């Protein structure tokens, strides 16, 4: 188990290998389909992104509403490939990590290798369990998007697994290679 803190640095990212179990502590930002579309519109218009992108981790999640007294509702990952069209541009700008579930396309994997970024998977469905590692949540942009708004999450030992590392490895491909039978 490797413990890492945000914002991520090149050194931290280099040390991570596909298959590593990782605990993340610090601040991460949420964003999924609609928010990513807004990010691109901001960039196209020459504006700043609503979060500090350098070293950032984006978590692909649309949490359920928080019950009274809780920072957040259930908060597991959504499927990542829908963000594949947007991710390389953010990686080029210095984003260092993405958390989601499911396969990425070659463009995202190449961007991870070229610019030094990592794709993590959190356990899809384990949303009540994952929420326990989120200690605070605050909407920082696009509140009108509801569950899709951008939130700053404070996390402590947030559990995930490295899928795509900066060395070009892919845990999903490795897993199938190891366990597939003809």
């Amino acid at each position, binding site marked *: 188990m490797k413990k890492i803190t945000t914002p991520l640095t090149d050194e931290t990212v280099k040390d991570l290998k596909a298959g590593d179990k990782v605990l993340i502590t610090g601040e991460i930002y949420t964003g999924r389909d609609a928010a990513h579309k807004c990010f691109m519109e901001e960039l196209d218009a020459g504006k700043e992104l609503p979060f500090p992108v350098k070293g950032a981790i984006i978590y692909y999640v649309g*949490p359920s509403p928080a019950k009274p007294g809780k920072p957040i*509702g259930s908060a597991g990952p959504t499927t990542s490939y829908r963000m594949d069209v947007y991710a390389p541009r953010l990686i080029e700008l210095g984003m260092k990590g993405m958390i989601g*579930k499911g396969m990425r396309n070659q463009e995202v994997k190449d961007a991870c290798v070229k610019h030094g970024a990592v794709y993590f*998977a959190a356990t899809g469905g384990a949303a009540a369990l994952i929420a326990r590692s989120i200690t605070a949540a605050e909407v920082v942009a696009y509140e009108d998007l509801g569950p899709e708004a951008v939130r700053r999450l404070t996390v402590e030992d947030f559990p995930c697994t490295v899928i795509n590392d900066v060395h070009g490895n892919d845990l999903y491909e490795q*897993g199938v290679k190891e*366990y597939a039978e003809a």
Partner: protein
Amino acid sequence: MRELDVVEVTKAIKELSMNSNFEIGEDVLAAFNDGLENEVSPAGRAVFEELIENAKIAKDERVPYCQDTGLAVVFLDIGQDVHLTGGDLTEAVNEGVRQGYEEGYLRKSSLDHPLRRKNTGDNTPAIIHTRIVPGEEVHVTFAPKGGGSENMSRIAMMPPSKGREGVIDFVVDVVRQAGSNPCPPIVVGVGMGGTFEYAAVMAKRALLRELGKPAADSDNAEIEKEIFERIKKLGIGPQGFGGRYTALAVQLESANCHLASLPVAVNIQCHAARHKEVVL
């Protein structure tokens, strides 16, 4: 003729929408425990540990098992000797969804239009499948459906010459292509025969069957078994981390079809396989 006030339907939907999101089925938990014991991949077994713990937290704290609390899919089997009173049945269902999703702190994931994409704010309208059946009962099933697994579903209108092997190959291929996306270990619902739209609804209904219970038709049960064994060999495993438990079950239903057709619909369901039923 029995009279039933639709407010009873509202109450039922409200409770089912919450309970189906907080408590996953005993059959699903049994399948998790089986996976925990028998999955060959250590990463896969670790996933089952997390899923079992997650189910316990969700049930004990009455919070959603998954943040994607789904589009509200409702099956109503209405006895033909029931007279529904007190208002519009569709509105009664939607009111139940509205109340359940609000009171249960469930996520509202319904958008008004596929391209305009504005959130309706209360997870309505529900997707309602109604059948008129003999008797004077109303069976209400609530099956919240997440987007991640639904997106991996496919339908094929095959030439009949493809036959049994063609059906099996298609289903296995859909699962292979879905890979780690739909939160494996998945439940695979298959609708074979009927027409284009009927095959898809059958595939969804197949997901409502108790896990591990084979199809009533013995040929269908054999095909389920064969697809299940083929899926095991794909190596995708829990969450796609590698292993044998890519699927918890394959559940196939069939219907008559046109002499020119062999429709096959595959509805992929995530491991939570949420659905709850009451009889009114």
